[in-house]
């Protein structure tokens, strides 16, 4: 068995608001029946627009949220409903990097304390002393090891993100969930962090779940990409297959909406303009959830929900996939 993570029918429903005293509470179907696997050392990208459930998925996998249904198997162990204390030893292999480098570091702790916290919480003092290991980690992520006594506010956004990365690396995890790790950074800093993450992934053979809304960024990082829409995976394929031959209409529309930097290429590209916005996850459309914005939608799309099926080299959930 080579997979580090197996997710089967993962579902998360959040309770919404109540409209009357004895009325039923709304149910926000943030993630609805996700199934996928991550191989050891593999980088998988999770893309989609805001509200599609990609961050919720990341938090479910790291067990920061309790799943409503489904099963999460990490490294052969069923972690779906483990308690906090049971999760603790497992977290040494399962880490997360957050989007906002300003909110995810405690402003009252020095960088040394922050990066050393996994050792303290996990109860696993590193060989050769904590300070030495922290300085090593800072060096690995491209920060000055002498800065371990400084506070987060003394660092820029890109540097803070590196601190978060050092913390995630501390216990040499087998899987890191990176939730929009570069979207809060300036363009010139984004490239530095993407390169760093990619180096670390190959150097330490860590599996990554890279969550992002930027398709070009994901293309530079992931070997396999899953596209999400309203809580479902609509397409999952090897990177080159997905980008060169998208099978789901939504994937196709998403790719065509990315603005083109080369002025000469703008006219030559096929443009698909979706109308309207993503529907409300409290009351998602029946059948295929994308049908309300899809130009190919027919009656069958409203009546039956398409399953994720293998077509060519991709897995697609669509009644009328692209050739």
């Amino acid at each position, binding site marked *: 068995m080579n997979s580090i993570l197996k997710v089967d029918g993962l579902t998360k429903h959040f309770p919404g608001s109540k409209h009357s005293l004895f009325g039923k509470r709304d149910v926000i179907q943030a993630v609805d029946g996700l199934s996928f696997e991550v191989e050891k050392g593999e980088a998988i990208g999770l893309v989609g627009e805001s509200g599609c459930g990609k961050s919720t998925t990341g938090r479910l996998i790291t067990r920061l949220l309790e799943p409503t249904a489904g099963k999460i198997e990490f490294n052969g162990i069923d972690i779906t409903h483990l308690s906090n204390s049971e999760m603790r030893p497992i977290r040494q292999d399962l880490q997360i990097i957050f989007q906002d480098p300003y909110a995810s570091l405690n402003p009252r702790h020095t960088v040394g304390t922050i990066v050393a916290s996994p050792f303290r919480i996990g109860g696993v003092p590193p060989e050769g002393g904590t300070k030495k290991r922290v300085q090593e980690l800072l060096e690995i992520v491209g920060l000055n090891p002498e800065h371990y006594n400084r506070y987060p506010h003394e660092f*820029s956004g890109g540097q803070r993100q590196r601190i978060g990365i050092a913390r995630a690396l501390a216990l040499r995890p087998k899987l890191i969930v990176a939730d929009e790790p570069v979207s809060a950074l300036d*363009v*010139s800093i*984004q490239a530095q962090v993407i390169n760093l993450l990619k180096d670390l992934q190959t150097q330490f053979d860590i599996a990554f779940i890279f969550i992002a809304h930027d398709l070009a960024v994901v293309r530079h990082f992931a070997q396999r990409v899953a596209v999400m829409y309203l809580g479902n995976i609509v397409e999952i394929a090897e990177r080159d297959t997905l980008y060169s031959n998208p099978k789901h209409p939504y994937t196709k529309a998403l790719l065509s909406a990315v603005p083109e*930097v080369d002025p*000469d290429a703008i006219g030559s590209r096929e443009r698909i303009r979706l109308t309207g916005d993503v529907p409300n996850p409290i009351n998602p459309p029946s059948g295929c959830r994308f049908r309300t914005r899809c130009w190919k939608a027919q009656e069958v799309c409203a009546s039956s929900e398409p399953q994720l099926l293998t077509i060519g080299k991709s897995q697609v959930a669509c009644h009328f996939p692209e050739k």
Partner: protein
Amino acid sequence: MNKFLEVKNLSVSFPTEDGVVRAVDNMSFSLEKGKTLGIVGESGSGKSVTSLAILGLHKGSSAQVSGEILIDGKDINAMQENEVQLLRGNLMSMIFQDALAALHPYYTVGNQIEEAYLVHNKVSKSVAKKRAIEMLDRVGIPEPQKRVDDYPHQFSGGMRQRAMIAMALSCNPSLLIADEPTTALDVTVQAQIIDLLRDLQKEFNTAIILITHDLGVVAETADDILLMYAGKEIEYGTVRDILQKPQHPYAWGLLTSIPRLTGNPNKPLAAIAGTPPSMISVPGGCAFHPRCSYVSQVGQSCSSSIPELVPVAQGAHHLVRCHLDAPVRGEIFKNQVAPNL
């Protein structure tokens, strides 16, 4: 030639406890009606401060603004606050990045569009409401008669952005400043808003200043690009000049560091080293020199003197602020940059 907007030697500085911050330093540019200028730069480079100066929004703050801002020949910077007020919304208008913060949560969307229209037109409230519905319809809000009475929180992110565009355009302004109008939006909605702005520009012949950090968005909308770094314009030219034949090392760095949908995804991105400078202590000489890989080709002057903004070639409209000699720069571009574009 008669330029609709002409900015000459604009400087904006803010006195702070740590010293004077020169947020914008000696900027000059111009814009014709029906054209779009993209101002591109990273956070803190002075893009937004420039746009606020054009709208006269620094008046009454501690900011010191010098230089001329000529719109249709009238100098905004020399005017009194109440004179500029008459032009704001009417002659020039602005849309902001965060539509939820820019719209008032207590008033309906219709109210807010009507307010802008009533300030500049002597009409009854019912006429103004009709105008609001007409504008909402024009920017693609479904069922505008019904939605006009909705509050901002009842709109989705993309619809709020549309409502703000409707508000900004309700008085047919000749100049529209769009400050990161699509940054907070999803790609599919971003594409819709870009299309909408382009259509509206054709219809109303509006001059647009588009402020963004996204080179893809400028490539799709702008005619000219002004690239800023640490409060200075460092390169200025047409979209094709800047994106296909960039001359400044910072422009090279930016263009090669963005991940694209084409090109080799297995090759590491050519990132720019270091971080943007703090505006309190801008490096001496060329502000970019601590991050520049070509300093060794020039020597001392990069850290001691600020390069002039000069034409790339004799008589060219493409301007660049860099100490590299033109032939050397051409060589570097041909051999090291162009293959990575």
